[in-house]
């Protein structure tokens, strides 16, 4: 007794759906609530006995077939539940013919189904058969697994299959064998789909990333082929309304929509998902909506608006394992989606129950600029709602509004996407960070004895009117260096200098400091204001910027040295990078780009090893010991005044807790620069006092700041000098630079400077035609370039490429 519903006996109400389509469309536009008038039901599921591989619906939208390795059943979709109608797996012995990779229900004939078996057999089933076994025909022409079967949308007897063996076959169900065979000349076919509008056309997708279009009448050659994805294209779907649109999904996690009307297939939309895309299905009645599910890792079903590719417009999260099949329940109803999954469940999803990530998304953005400006973008409705408040107090510029006009053709549940952007500027003086840049550039962190480093840094801080920091450096020198290295004259000198700040020092307590710091920084901000533009320049001009600083700060580096001929020596390159003339003599030269292609694995260089460590012979005054009982801050000032300091001995790590507190204090104040600089200069003396994580935190913050100010060289030096493992390996990652040969414009696969295709040296200067050793700049557009100096000069007069290739070069 066949439980299948015989054709024509289904309730008239269900069949009425297509007829009442225009009415339904109107309703659907008017609101989601009325949309279910034609079909009704709720979100529901049923357990299958085994994982499903594919599902397909009957044209009447009342039955669904589920196929998998161990399951092949038809379920009736009722108001409240799924009801098992028929089990097509009959027979005692399990046969591989029942192990389905794909299943499809004919959209013209309710009795006709086709399955693709993993062993390469294509089977058709006729539900009208009176016997228990509904198997109709068996085509064993494919040599490998058949991945996909597809019925012709209007022709009853035409079936298409695509297989792992690289062939597509077209079957006429009235004949025993295939009518025609199409060879894709490629490994395997992943999907085949008849075009809905073009009677003769079908699309096939391949494992090598290609999509081919075939004319069913011409099995000898494809009509058109293009590469759609990087890696296999798992699925495709023709747009049900728009004739030329084909959506494809691939292993490269992309969903792409192609316009096939033009001579060359044009990619018009692209959605980036988070996992490889297993199925795509256009949503009925919604021109831009498409449902996808993924093959691995991600179990959700997404419905995307292809025009808004960053956030899915709806999401169904019911499945607990990957979804293997999705299908819209009815050709013209956009609210019901059926899905089968590896977790052995069959679901009916209702659109109104879908979660809409857009609701949960925060359509606000907030970002600080380097100079303390604050930009804030938010949904317009959020801002206008409290318009009585005046949030734009510090706003100097006009708030900018971006608005998108609502699309009147948009049917429903459109979420407004207009937003407003406001920029808040901080006033110039308080926001300036010039002191930071100057300090970063001028500090000496290594390469000299500790005392000299401290002196130098104290002088730098002093020069920028940061007296407190200057004092700290001076004190550090006193604490950690022995008498021998500190000349008394020098000491007096610094003491004398320091005395100006002394009243402040003596009077402060912990609470006073912020204000003290504040005033201090404000001072040098106003002083350094004129520099702001320089800093804004990009890295190529920092060289000049550096030079500028050197001059003004009276450094002993001759200015023309920095601008000297780049070609002279490769080392020059690195010497220029260093602000501090002493650093480059030491071991800190950057790895030369061309040669150490492997990671250069250095043990953490303990930066100060070569310095004399005088820790074992300190000189500290006896009265110091008493002051320890006082607050640490006060003891500082005492130390700095006391001259008897050098006559007595006390282990230098005696002060470590105080120094540690000082560093913590600075870091707490936001002056992570001082903390890190002291940390580097003192090296092992203080390192153990502060836990690794805090150190790492300081380093990352400082490096981040340096990089925001485009002080690349300094940040790299800091990375190099740091003793934290995590920091140290920062500049050992991503050290590969991909370049093109300037002759043949192909990527240089070879290491070194000779292109192995054209056997020429790739790094010729386009201006002087000499080989560039040293700073080489090149245009990423045309691969031509040359000496930095020459190119800069050239670009002053011309914007075209000096090589004469006609490219309008862009250098950033």
């Amino acid at each position, binding site marked *: 007794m066949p439980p299948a519903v015989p054709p024509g006996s289904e309730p008239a109400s269900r069949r009425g759906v297509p007829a009442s389509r225009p009415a339904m469309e109107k309703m659907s536009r008017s609101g989601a609530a009325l949309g279910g008038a034609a079909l009704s039901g709720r979100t529901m599921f049923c357990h299958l006995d085994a994982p499903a591989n594919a599902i397909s619906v009957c044209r009447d939208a009342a039955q669904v077939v589920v196929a998998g390795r161990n399951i092949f059943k038809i379920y009736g979709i009722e108001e409240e539940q799924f009801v098992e109608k028929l089990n097509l797996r009959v027979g005692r012995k399990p*046969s591989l013919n029942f192990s389905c990779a794909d299943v499809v229900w004919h959209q013209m004939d309710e009795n006709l189904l086709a399955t693709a078996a993993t062993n390469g057999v294509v089977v058709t089933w006729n539900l009208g058969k009176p016997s228990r076994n509904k198997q109709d025909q068996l085509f064993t022409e494919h*040599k490998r697994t058949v991945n996909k079967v597809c019925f012709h949308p209007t022709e009853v007897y035409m079936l298409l299959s695509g297989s792992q063996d690289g062939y597509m076959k077209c079957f006429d169900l009235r004949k025993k064998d295939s009518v025609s065979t199409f060879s894709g000349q490629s490994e395997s076919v992943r999907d085949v789909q008849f075009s809905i509008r073009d009677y003769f056309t079908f699309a096939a997708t391949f494992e090598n990333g290609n999509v081919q279009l075939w004319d069913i009448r011409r099995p000898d050659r494809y009509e058109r082929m293009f590469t759609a994805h990087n890696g296999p294209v798992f699925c495709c779907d023709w747009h049900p309304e728009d004739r030329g649109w084909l959506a494809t999904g691939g292993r490269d996690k992309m969903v792409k929509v192609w316009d096939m009307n033009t001579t060359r297939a044009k990619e018009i939309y692209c959605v980036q998902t988070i996992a490889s895309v297993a199925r795509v299905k256009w949503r009925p009645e919604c021109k831009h909506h498409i449902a996808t599910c993924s093959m691995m890792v991600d179990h959700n079903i997404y419905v995307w608006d292809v025009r808004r590719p960053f956030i899915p417009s709806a999401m169904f999260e019911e499945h607990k394992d990957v979804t293997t099949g999705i299908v819209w329940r009815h050709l013209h109803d956009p609210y019901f989606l059926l899905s089968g999954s590896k977790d052995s469940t069959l679901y009916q999803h209702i659109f109104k129950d879908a979660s809409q990530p857009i609701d949960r998304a925060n359509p606000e953005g907030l970002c600080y600029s380097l100079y303390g400006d604050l930009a804030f973008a938010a949904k317009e409705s959020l801002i206008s709602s409290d318009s009585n408040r005046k949030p734009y107090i510090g706003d100097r510029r006009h708030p900018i509004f971006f608005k998108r006009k609502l699309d009147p053709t948009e049917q429903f549940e459109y979420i407004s996407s207009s937003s407003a952007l406001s920029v808040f500027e901080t006033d110039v003086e308080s926001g300036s960070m010039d002191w930071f840049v100057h300090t970063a550039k001028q500090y000496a962190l290594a390469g000299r004895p500790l005392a000299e480093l401290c002196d130098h840094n104290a002088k730098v801080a002093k020069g920028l009117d940061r007296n407190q920091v200057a004092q700290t450096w001076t004190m550090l020198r006193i604490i950690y260096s022995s008498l021998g290295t500190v000349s008394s004259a020098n000491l007096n000198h610094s003491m004398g200098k320091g005395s100006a700040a002394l009243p402040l020092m003596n009077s402060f307590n912990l609470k006073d400091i912020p204000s003290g710091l504040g005033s201090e920084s404000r001072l040098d901000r106003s002083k350094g204001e004129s520099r702001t533009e320089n800093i804004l320049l990009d890295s190529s001009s920092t060289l000049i910027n550096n030079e500028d600083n050197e001059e003004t700060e009276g450094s002993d580096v001759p200015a023309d040295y920095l601008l000297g001929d780049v070609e002279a020596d490769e080392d020059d390159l690195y010497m220029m990078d260093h602000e501090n003339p002493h650093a480059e003599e030491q071991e800190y030269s950057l790895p030369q780009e061309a040669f150490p292609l492997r990671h250069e694995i250095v043990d953490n260089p303990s930066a100060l090893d070569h310095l004399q460590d005088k820790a074992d012979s300190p000189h500290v005054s006896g009265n110091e010991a008493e002051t320890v009982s006082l607050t640490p801050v006060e003891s500082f000032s005492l130390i700095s005044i006391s001259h008897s300091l050098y006559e007595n001995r006390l282990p230098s790590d005696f002060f470590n807790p105080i120094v540690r507190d000082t560093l913590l204090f600075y870091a707490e104040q936001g002056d992570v620069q001082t903390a890190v600089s002291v940390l580097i200069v003192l090296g092992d003396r203080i390192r153990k006092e502060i836990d690794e994580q805090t150190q790492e935190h300081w380093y990352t913050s400082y490096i981040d700041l340096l990089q925001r100010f485009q002080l690349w060289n300094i940040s790299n030096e800091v990375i190099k000098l740091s003793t934290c493992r995590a920091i140290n390996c920062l500049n050992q990652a991503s050290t590969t630079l991909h370049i093109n040969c300037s002759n043949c414009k192909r990527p240089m696969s070879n290491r*070194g400077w000779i292109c192995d295709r054209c056997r020429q040296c790739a790094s010729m200067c386009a201006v002087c035609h000499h080989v560039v050793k040293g700073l080489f700049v090149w245009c990423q557009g045309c691969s031509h370039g040359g000496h930095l100096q020459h190119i800069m000069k050239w670009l002053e007069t011309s914007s075209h490429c000096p090589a004469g290739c006609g490219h309008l070069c862009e250098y950033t």
Partner: protein
Amino acid sequence: MEEREGDVRWDGLCSRDAAARAAALEHLGQAVLRRGGAAAAPRVLARLLLLAKRCPFRDVREKSEAILSGVQELGIRIPRPLGHGPSRFIPEKETIQVGNEDAMMHTLFAESFATLGRLDNVTLVMVFHPQYLESFLKTQHYLLQMDGPLPLHYRHYIGIMAAARHQCSYLVNLHVNDFLHVGGDPKWLNGLENAPQKLQNLGELNKMLAHRPWLITKEHIEQLLKTEENSWSLAELIHAVVLLTHYHSLASFTFGCGISPEIDCEGGHTFRPPSVSNYCICDMTNGYHGVDDIHASPTTTESVCEVEALMEKMKQLQECRDEEEASQEEMATRFEREKRESMFVCSSEDEESAPTRDVSRHFEDTSYGYKDFSRHGMHVPTFRAQDYSWEDHGYSLVNRLYPDVGQLLDEKFHIAYNLTYNTMAMHKDVDTSMLRRAIWNYIHCMFGIRYDDYDYGEINQLLDRSFKVYIKTVVCTPEKTTKRMYDSFWRQFEHSEKGQTTLSPLPLLTTPSAPQVHVNLLLVEARMQAELLYALRAITRYMT
């Protein structure tokens, strides 16, 4: 000795710039010959010997040779290479001689030399198939030296662990050197129990992957990822798994092709004058039990018949496949039968070889070896290739957690699987895909992976018993491979091609050993993929 060695600098020799090499060589020569050869420690000399024999750059070879003879003139005994070329199975005269390679091979050699600082024997054997070698080197370089979640010394240590599972002293030696070179702690080399707990935890997975990957479950993965401290991150685990499988299968290749020890490693050279004896230490240390060439060589006519017969069979299978309609049950039982039979395909010389002490300290539990499926009544469900395949699932998972590696592996699998010159012995334009697929699927079958769309009866038709023995040994217990096994399969190919050596215009194809090496590449990649599939499936299950 260590201090004196400090004088001798090897860097710069790997440079592509001839001038830089010349300078480095000059310096090297001076350092060695200075002070009457006082710096000429045996290790330095061995390294020089390696350079003299196995450097892709002619200038380096010549100069090293010169330095060595300079040392000899000083009255110091210099080493000479032991063994006979890069492989014990392949006669030296058939391998590519360094210096005689064509342009493409030279590029590959130079590449390998520049990145590794050496040209190892594996490379010299693989170069029979340069297209594959390129992909192999690229992958290996990425795994060991490029960006990745694991620190460099961990990577080499994992390589050692994996190779040690198969008692492959060749790979262990190689990576012990590399491990120390990247700053690994020498203490770890005393055994796994001296390594960090984190690596010790990996031991169990290593063991199972190497011998019984089908037993890996998501619980194993969970154990690695969920331990309070010393836990692995997913990305690290993937990296480790790829490394483990890479070295397991490379160990198969090493034994399968009988790779000789490197010249500068222990057992690769001797300081004894050649006349003393022909006794080869290396054969013992690697667990080779005597090299016997006693197999009766078949007459040429006979072997030609074998090739003909094989081709005839392939043709038959091709033709009759459409007509002969095997029932579904028949197909299913054929797989089971092949799976079962693969158990009984055992090498006759099943004697227990005690691993050398040197290698055995790297792994515990020596008794744990490949055990056939369901031999002990355990029923393990068959792994269906259609349900979890490399192309659809494995690739995505690997690439997600360890970017770019999925792509590299994918390329490597493809090249190995599709590698063909369309020749079979002296026959040209033969479609060998059927044979390649049979080998590939046979290996997967041994691991319980079944392809629904494959008729396992074909395997029986195409692969004869001696070949099956060889495959099974190399894949499951590579350390037991012997030269006799190697010689006993596909004799016809070797012998029938020998007569043709001078006739064929393509030098590569005349090399008699190329097909054997080709088979080995297939074995390597099929095994790697099988192991990976099991491990990745477990990880996927853990993640869902």
